[in-house]
């Protein structure tokens, strides 16, 4: 009761703070004085109110206050405390409140951390950010109030969707939002820098920190989502090209490209148009993602409840931001100084530029694959779904030049280059392709494309690895991330090529044999947990080398809401994952068993962590 009421009113108070901030900012903008401390105080006050409001919602979830509609819809008394708390942002209303919390937190930090920048720039950034914050306040209060009151008070809640009850997923949204919202700071800062003609090498090095931190969170957030899908959904893969996955990937492409442009801007004061457009693009793509996911316009497994009113609000808001940015870009943006643009095709700039275009190509492929079905549906009422083959066919071939440039680019110098270690580079290239050919020739896969792909990845892998040992600390962050990327592509390729699977129906006591693999279905047990009952199967698997392991996949029967989920059992080793799921078969005696061997699975996660680590190293070197 009380926490909800407090939460609601402090949300309104926080909203009112926005107007004070805007009022003082505009008054202070043209004065010669320093930044008005009232602006800082009100920003802090706003942050405090939003924090109180958020805690009010968390508390309502913890004490299971079912007079609150959000709690009633998404919680249940039998849920463990951890999931009661994470349930706060496992729904539409709560997750928007979290967005708002992070928005106000970041702009406050921005004000604190930019004391050395010009006052006008700080104030204008704050103003742009307040436009976004006000948009979210109105959105929350008008269409998705998390504190709606219901009467009579129900005695029990409806429960959180069981597949969301998972530790990785509990922290996935907050981390991802930190990335998205960081992008909003970059957006506001880039717009205000454009208006004030403030873009300089110094500005680049200041904004780079924000780009890095958002990039780290975004990358890590995507990783968590992917891990969750692998362990929880039990489809046996790490990426499904589901629209909701795609919308988190698109800002990542834009942000990664932005990161590289900022480097060029910081050193050479070039690519300013790229920087501005990408700063705008990253945030609008994040917002566009929110729109596509929340409005229910897309067909996806993760779509939340849809409500056209919400959809229209985000849509109008999103496009107001887009038109505002276009207006600012066209009227205020000054293109690069011509004398700076001279660089040879064999230079760092050229390689960054080339890979930028490739990144934009990947981004367009994903964007088109995600929104094309909507366009087609509207224009011709035809319904299609775009599947993995589309993405694979369009993206994979272009990974080859992408990888090669990633390997060679950092070796080049700015403006133009005389490569000193030509021989070295060529020797590595030959070795990589030779090794790749040697691996592929023994396998039953297409020779040419696989050799070139694996060869290019090996090339990047060996070059970055040798640099890690040779150069010690020069460019270490770039080196780590590029190394991680090569490892990622290699793991994905090997994972694809070497995976194998067995699908069969078995009853208890049955033994299944195929290709020297023996699956022995030993027994099933029943177990009662706090919020579900589980049936646990015990399987003993002996492989061709006579090693045996025991896997215990589960079926979980949740009572609130009534859903059966299958929990895969996965044995992870350094070289492969053994993955098993079971499903019920109608006539009880039999269970449907899916057993998969997925090589190098863990390396996919590790390599993304390495990529993120590179970003972190770079971030800590900055401060």
């Amino acid at each position, binding site marked *: 009761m009380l926490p909800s009421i407090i939460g609601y009113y402090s949300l309104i108070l926080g909203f009112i703070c926005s107007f004070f901030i805007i009022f003082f900012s505009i008054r202070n903008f043209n004065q010669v004085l320093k930044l008005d401390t009232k602006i800082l105080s009100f920003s802090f006050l706003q942050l405090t109110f939003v924090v109180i409001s958020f805690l009010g919602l968390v508390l309502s979830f913890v004490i299971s206050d079912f007079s609150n509609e959000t709690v009633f819809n998404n919680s249940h008394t039998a849920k463990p405390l951890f999931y009661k708390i994470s349930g706060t942002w496992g729904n539409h209303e709560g997750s928007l409140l979290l967005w708002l919390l992070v928005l106000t937190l970041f702009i406050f930090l921005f004000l604190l951390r930019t004391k050395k920048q010009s006052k006008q720039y700080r104030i204008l950034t704050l103003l742009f950010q307040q436009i976004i914050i006000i948009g979210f306040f109105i959105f929350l209060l008008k269409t998705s109030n998390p504190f709606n009151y219901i009467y009579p008070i129900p005695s029990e809640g409806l429960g959180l969707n069981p597949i969301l009850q998972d530790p990785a997923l509990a922290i996935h949204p907050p981390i991802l939002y930190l990335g998205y919202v960081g992008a909003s700071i970059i957006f506001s800062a880039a717009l205000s820098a454009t208006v004030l003609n403030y873009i300089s090498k110094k500005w680049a090095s200041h904004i780079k920190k924000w780009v890095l931190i958002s990039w780290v969170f975004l990358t890590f957030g995507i990783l968590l989502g992917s891990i969750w899908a692998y362990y929880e959904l039990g489809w046996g893969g790490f990426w499904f090209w589901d629209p909701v996955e795609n919308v988190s990937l698109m800002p990542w492409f834009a942000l990664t490209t932005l990161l590289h442009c900022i480097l060029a801007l910081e050193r050479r004061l070039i690519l300013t148009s790229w920087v501005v457009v990408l700063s705008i693009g990253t945030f609008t793509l994040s917002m566009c993602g929110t*729109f596509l996911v929340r*409005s*229910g*316009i*897309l*067909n*996806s497994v993760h*779509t939340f409840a*849809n409500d*056209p009113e919400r*959809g*229209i609000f985000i*849509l109008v808001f999103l*496009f107001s931001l*887009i*038109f505002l940015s*276009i207006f600012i870009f*066209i009227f205020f943006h000054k293109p690069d100084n011509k004398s700076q643009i001279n660089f040879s095709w064999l230079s760092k700039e050229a390689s960054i530029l080339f890979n930028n275009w490739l990144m934009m190509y990947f981004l367009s492929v994903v964007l088109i694959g995600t929104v094309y079905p*909507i*366009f087609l*549906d*509207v*224009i011709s*009422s*035809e*319904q*299609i*779904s775009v*599947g993995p*083959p589309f993405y694979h066919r369009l993206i994979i071939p272009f990974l080859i030049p992408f990888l090669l440039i990633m390997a060679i680019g950092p070796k080049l110098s700015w403006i133009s280059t005389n490569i000193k270690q030509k021989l070295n580079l060529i020797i590595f290239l030959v070795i990589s392709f030779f090794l790749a050919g040697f691996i592929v020739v023994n396998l039953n896969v297409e020779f040419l494309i696989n050799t070139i792909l694996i060869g290019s990845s090996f090339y990047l892998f060996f070059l970055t690895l040798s640099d890690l040992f040779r150069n010690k600390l020069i460019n270490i962050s770039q080196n780590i991330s590029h190394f991680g990327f090569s490892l990622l592509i290699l793991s994905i390729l090997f994972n694809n090529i070497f995976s194998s699977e067995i*699908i*069969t*129906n078995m009853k208890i006591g049955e033994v299944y044999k195929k290709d020297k693999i023996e699956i022995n279905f030993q027994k099933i047990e029943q177990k009662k947990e706090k919020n579900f009952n589980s049936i646990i199967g015990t399987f003993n698997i002996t492989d061709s080398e006579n090693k045996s392991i025991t896997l215990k996949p589960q079926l979980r029967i949740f009572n609130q809401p009534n859903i059966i989920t*299958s929990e895969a059992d996965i044995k992870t080793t350094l070289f492969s994952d053994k993955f098993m799921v079971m*499903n*019920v*078969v*109608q*006539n009880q005696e*039999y269970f*449907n068993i*899916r057993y998969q061997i997925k090589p190098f699975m863990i390396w996919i996660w590790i390599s993304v962590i390495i990529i993120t680590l590179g970003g972190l190293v770079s971030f800590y070197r900055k401060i």
Partner: protein
Amino acid sequence: MKNKFSILLIVFFTFIFIIFYKGLNNSNIYVPSTQVEKDVPDLKVKLLRSQNEIELKSLFEGNEFYLINIWSSWCGPCREEHPILMNLKNQKNINIIGLNYKDNKANAEKFLRELGNPYYEILEDNNGSKSIELGAYGVPESFLIHQNKIIRKYIGPLNQNLFTEINSLIK
């Protein structure tokens, strides 16, 4: 130059805005049944048992109703809906055609031996492309066809309610 460019940009984004706006109004997330009126696409399909290739359209005759059911032995919800299909098989006026989605033949056969075979004909879809061409999102999914037109589309497993709906449609 700059002006033309800006007009172009604005026109482009306005266009996208309109499309999204319209898309919102006919949004369709996992509605269990959608009313559609669409011709059956021209599609060559392979019969699972005989491995003969035929035109999909050649399966549909006269005034009969047909239900294309996309299923797979590995798919949990397909087992759930199977009894409904077995009941539906006993109705007059309707023939059920199974489209076996990304499955292997032995498992599919085993599945049917175990749970019964409701299908009048079984087609093969090894890589899932036939289902996509039909307009499916995943498994299980069913299309009700009459006079060479898809008249209803059922996303997700069939249940008792949908069973009643189909029954009333084919009467």
